[in-house]
């Protein structure tokens, strides 16, 4: 036998002091959801079967452990019975509480729906079994006869009989109609008495012909439907009594779990075991998937899992042949519903099946003719599956039902296909996990964790930096806070409303205050807080009425704004509050439609607004400010975007987890700064970290999702774009500060270091361009260098790489640049009326000015941008000496650099006086330039100068022309 392991996930807390508890599990109609409950947990959890890591939904209305679950056969109604003596009904799959359908005086142990869903049987430690009409909640009948607590109930699929078993092992066979006892079989099942985690149960085969009861010899005994005679037993490798059994939907197979912690799958026809699976704990409940070959199991520790293909693929599927059964139209109940029903734990619903064992051995009294009919049909079915003649009545009934059912399905599929608008979330919160601590908030500063106990939770606030952060005592929370936000000064909490009594509350807790009792709370009536945020002196909460409420940190209600749509998340930093809302319902193709606003709370202004792009089909998972105060967003497809004001305000994708090519890792973003992403790396099934041990942040480099370039220097290209982006941001800040009249010295320094870094990066890019023989690109890059020194470096670099042609071009660029610089400064100094031309040339001289404008200006022009009339002349004069001697080339290039430098020094003074008076004649100027001490400078100076002069003259004429 193959050894497989079924991964079990924790769904419920363990019982008190690690004891066993009785857990229940159910599938929904489509096999999309799994419902679990445990006798040590008052919550019922609805898990997503496909994505178990998705936050399960809890239904918490009981005050004590849930011992029994049952789904109505049409899957619209969920019933739960609890130790708190009540039986409650909920809508399914929504989980809305409907009614307390009945109460007992002692705990409930078992629940079962009948085939049509009109009747619910409930029983427990009380002596009677209540049969309740589900429509009005009236008690149709109380069946009394058991001596011990009743642990198992089962309606006969043909709705004639009813069977129950108690903890002493007695099975009673009831006739439903008059409600009388047909047979009492004493002590045929193992007595469990005190052990509440192993309960006797029994189950009708889906065709209703057999009643399966765990036997005394670690076996399953089959009893005849009508006479309650023992027919045969399934006996095999169970070494301890069987505690749960479940028929496959077609009745061909049976799964049994024993106290020996194994599950055995039986072929009922052959009375043989097919497969088995060992577990670390006793499996207290199992359910076959309604479609397909899977078995959901839950153990007595509250861990559930799905055993995929328990029946080997070589054999018939456990759900095969059901369609035939459907056409069979056996009885008075809805076939379609039967078809879709799961064999729930206690509501033992199933299909009419063909797999009738021991045909020949059956000698039964037929009670009525319909049964005889069905019997005949069954045989036919078994032999050749040829079509059945149905009575008119049956046909019409089933037709009606099938229409109903279809309607139901259509409704279902509608809700399934339309993408939902994502719900509001708090950045840095993890979903609820039963019995575990979870994060309400985890940011770069610290964390807020919450641990759910019965009726209250325990909230702890920790700062990462234990030395500087304040020490905050843990608190007990009776509100059930699910949202929190944290900064240096305080923390804010909020809870959604739960029922009428429990209103949505917002609470703020400052960490230090001179006054006592400075924490405050607000209650919101008929409104629910969806997201919270806080900043330096304010607290914000967005509510279900699309209000954005802004409070001061002392609890003053400052503003109430109406938001444009349902809120997705709120983030605060200092004075800034970022709000993400839905702008329209989610598109079926593209997913969420979100927009964001950034508000300045102090000045009551809006600083930014726009759409929030997401990767198609994804949803927002994190939103926040970077350490520098930039907005960042992270979506479920693993793309990090940063907002820049380039291109009129756009989002740049600066990180994509798919580019890292580590499919088994998920990144849970916590924050970012200019170059790094701070995240918690989670191993693949998990998309979020556990609260204990405290997760450790990992730094990941930001990297644009670049196209695979022919250069093969993606790191450099990435760095290039990134540095350009930073430079732009810094310049923006410099401008802002300068406009505000603040000192920009420190930012200037920062800008300088980034420029230097950018230049280094460009130089390396030039090198790789040269190696890759992309000379045009190299030339373009040279123009982007911000410092002269770097241009000289580039010239050195290309000469070392033996590319004289390029070196020459570079030096031309350098000269051009020097001249422009000189001219620019002159003009700036001399005459401020020439604004427009100066701007244009400025671009050359200082690419460090707004980078985008540099690119715009430079990119459109090929290297021959030196088309200002003066330059061709200069080139001409330069060429002759170089053309002949390629060897001297390097020195020349250097020399040019030097001369230019020297010239520049002189020029600064001279050009001013030389050019300021517009009418000065060109002949005069060489005189003023005879000063330079450098002997090399002479020649080039003259050239340089003349070209310079020409260009200036041209500019001036241009300018005057304009005027």
């Amino acid at each position: 036998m193959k050894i497989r392991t079924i991964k079990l996930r924790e769904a419920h807390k363990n019982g008190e002091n690690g004891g066993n508890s009785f857990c229940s599990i159910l599938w929904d109609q489509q096999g999309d959801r799994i419902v679990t409950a445990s006798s040590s947990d008052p919550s019922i959890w609805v898990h997503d079967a496909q994505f178990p890591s998705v936050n399960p939904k809890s239904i918490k209305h009981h005050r004590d452990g849930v011992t029994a679950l049952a789904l109505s056969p049409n899957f619209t109604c969920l019933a739960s019975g609890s130790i708190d003596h009540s039986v409650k009904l909920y809508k399914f799959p929504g989980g809305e509480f409907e009614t307390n359908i009945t109460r007992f005086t002692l705990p409930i142990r078992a629940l079962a729906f009948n085939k049509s869903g009109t009747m619910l049987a409930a029983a427990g430690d009380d002596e009677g079994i209540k049969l309740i009409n589900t429509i009005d909640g009236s008690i149709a009948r109380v069946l009394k006869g058991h001596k011990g607590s009743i642990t198992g109930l089962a309606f006969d699929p043909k709705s004639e009989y009813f069977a129950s078993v108690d903890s002493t092992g007695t099975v009673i066979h009831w006739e439903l109609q008059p409600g009388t006892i047909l047979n009492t079989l004493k002590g045929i099942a193992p007595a469990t008495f005190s052990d509440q985690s192993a309960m006797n149960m029994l189950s009708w085969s889906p065709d209703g012909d057999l009643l399966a009861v765990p036997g005394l010899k670690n076996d399953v005994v089959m009893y005849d439907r009508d006479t309650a005679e023992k027919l045969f037993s399934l006996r095999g490798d169970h070494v301890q009594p069987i505690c749960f059994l479940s028929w496959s939907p077609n009745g061909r197979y049976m799964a049994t779990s024993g106290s020996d912690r194994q599950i055995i799958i039986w072929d009922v026809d052959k009375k043989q075991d097919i497969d088995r699976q060992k577990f670390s704990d006793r499996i207290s409940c199992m359910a076959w998937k309604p479609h397909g070959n899977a078995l959901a199991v839950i153990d007595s520790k509250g861990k559930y899992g799905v055993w995929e293909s328990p029946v080997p693929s070589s054999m018939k599927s456990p759900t095969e042949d059901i369609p035939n059964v459907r056409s069979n139209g056996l009885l008075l109940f809805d076939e379609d519903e039967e078809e879709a029903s799961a064999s729930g734990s206690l509501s033992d619903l199933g299909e009419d099946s063909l797999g009738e064992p021991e045909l020949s051995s059956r000698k039964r009294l037929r009670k009525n003719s319909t049964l005889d009919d069905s019997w005949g049909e069954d045989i036919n079915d078994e032999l050749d599956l040829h079509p059945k003649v149905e009575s008119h009545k049956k046909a019409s009934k089933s037709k009606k039902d099938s229409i109903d059912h279809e309607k139901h399905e259509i409704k279902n599929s509608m809700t399934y296909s339309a993408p939902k608008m994502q719900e509001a979330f708090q950045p840095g919160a993890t979903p609820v996990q039963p019995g575990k601590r979870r994060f309400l908030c985890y940011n770069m500063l610290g964390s807020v964790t919450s641990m759910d106990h019965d009726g209250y939770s325990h909230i702890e606030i920790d700062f990462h930096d234990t030395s500087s952060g304040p020490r905050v005592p843990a608190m007990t929370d009776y509100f059930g806070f699910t949202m929190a936000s944290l900064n240096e000064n305080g923390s804010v909490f909020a809870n959604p409303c739960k029922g009428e009594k429990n209103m949505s509350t917002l609470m703020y807790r400052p960490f230090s205050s001179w006054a006592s009792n400075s924490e405050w709370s607000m209650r919101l009536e008929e409104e629910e807080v969806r997201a919270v945020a806080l900043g330096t002196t304010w607290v914000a909460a967005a509510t279900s009425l699309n209000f954005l409420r802004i409070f001061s940190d002392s609890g003053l209600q400052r503003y109430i704004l109406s938001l444009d749509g349902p809120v997705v998340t709120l983030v605060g930093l200092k004075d800034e509050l970022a709000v993400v809302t839905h702008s329209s319902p989610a598109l079926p193709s593209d997913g969420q439609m979100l927009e964001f606003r950034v508000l300045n709370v102090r000045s009551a202004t809006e600083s930014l607004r726009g759409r929030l792009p997401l990767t198609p089909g994804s949803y927002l998972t994190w939103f926040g400010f970077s350490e520098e105060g930039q907005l960042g967003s992270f979506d479920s497809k693993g793309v990090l975007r940063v907002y820049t004001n380039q291109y009129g305000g756009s989002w740049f994708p600066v990180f994509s987890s798919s580019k890292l090519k580590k499919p088994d890792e998920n990144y849970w973003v916590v924050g970012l700064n200019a170059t790094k992403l701070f995240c918690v790396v989670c191993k693949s099934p998990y998309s979020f970290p556990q609260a204990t041990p405290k997760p450790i942040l990992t730094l990941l480099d930001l990297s644009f999702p670049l196209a695979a370039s022919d250069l093969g220097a993606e790191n450099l290209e990435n760095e290039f774009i990134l540095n350009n982006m930073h430079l732009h941001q810094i310049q923006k800040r410099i401008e802002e500060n300068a406009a505000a009249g603040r000192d920009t010295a420190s930012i200037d320094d920062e800008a300088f270091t980034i420029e230097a870094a950018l230049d280094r990066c460009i130089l390396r890019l030039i090198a790789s361009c040269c190696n890759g023989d992309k000379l045009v690109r190299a030339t373009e890059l040279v123009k982007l260098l911000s410092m002269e020194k770097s241009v000289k470096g580039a010239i050195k670099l290309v000469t070392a790489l033996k590319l004289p042609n390029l070196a020459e071009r570079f030096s031309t660029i350098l000269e051009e640049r020097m001249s422009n610089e000189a001219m620019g400064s002159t003009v700036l100094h001399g005459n401020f009326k020439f604004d427009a031309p100066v701007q244009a040339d400025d671009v050359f001289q200082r690419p460090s000015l707004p980078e985008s404008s540099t690119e715009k200006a430079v990119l459109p022009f090929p290297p021959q941008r030196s088309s200002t009339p003066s330059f061709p002349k200069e080139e001409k004069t330069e060429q002759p000496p170089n053309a002949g001697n390629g060897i001297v080339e390097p020195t020349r290039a250097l020399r040019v650099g030097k001369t230019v430098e020297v010239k520049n020094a002189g020029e600064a003074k001279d050009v001013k006086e030389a050019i300021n008076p517009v009418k000065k004649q060109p002949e005069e100027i060489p005189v003023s330039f005879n000063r330079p001490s450098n002997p090399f400078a002479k020649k080039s100076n003259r050239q340089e100068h003349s070209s310079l002069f020409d260009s200036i003259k041209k500019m001036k004429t241009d300018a005057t022309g304009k005027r």
Partner: protein
Amino acid sequence: MASQADAHAATFSAAELEFLAEDELIEIVPNMRMDPLNLICGDFGPFRPQIATQVPVWLAVALKRRGKCTIRPPDWMSVEKLTQVLEAERDAEKFQPLPFHYVEISRLLFDHARDDIPDIYMVRSLIEDIKDVRFHKIGTGLEIISRERTYALRLKNLSAMEANIVRPFVTRALQTFYKLSSPDMIQDSDSVSNRQPQTANRGPRRQLKDR
């Protein structure tokens, strides 16, 4: 520890070895903010709360003592890894690859960062077991030296502590063998005169035992 028993025979004392091991790098998670430390051995940091960084063991221990960080036990110090190593160590004749200073580092962490190691008792007993198995292997392995004439030993993956223990004995033993064997060879060397005496003396080179 055997080395402590005959410390005078060992080249280094256990404390000295521990000192050497303190230069190994280990990952810590600081809970304070601090600029990078520029030390002679290199630059460490910057230290940012809740972000792991690599520092030498001595620094980690110093910070830990002041409650400024938690130490992340190295990968090989997990129960699964150690269980694997222990099993492999028992089965195979070779030494399993473990960090050169595994004895010292684990010791330091047990002394100073017991709250940072998950399942510390398990880890500790596993490391003890591994150490015992390896020392036992060395002990039995050394018998080979005396059984046959050996001129060299190759011990791959030997850790610092283990090397320290075997070094005095093994080197001396090998030297002795060498000395003892050379006179015979000198006699032989007359007949095989043109060969280098040194290499000839080695005799047929034995396949070195890989352990």
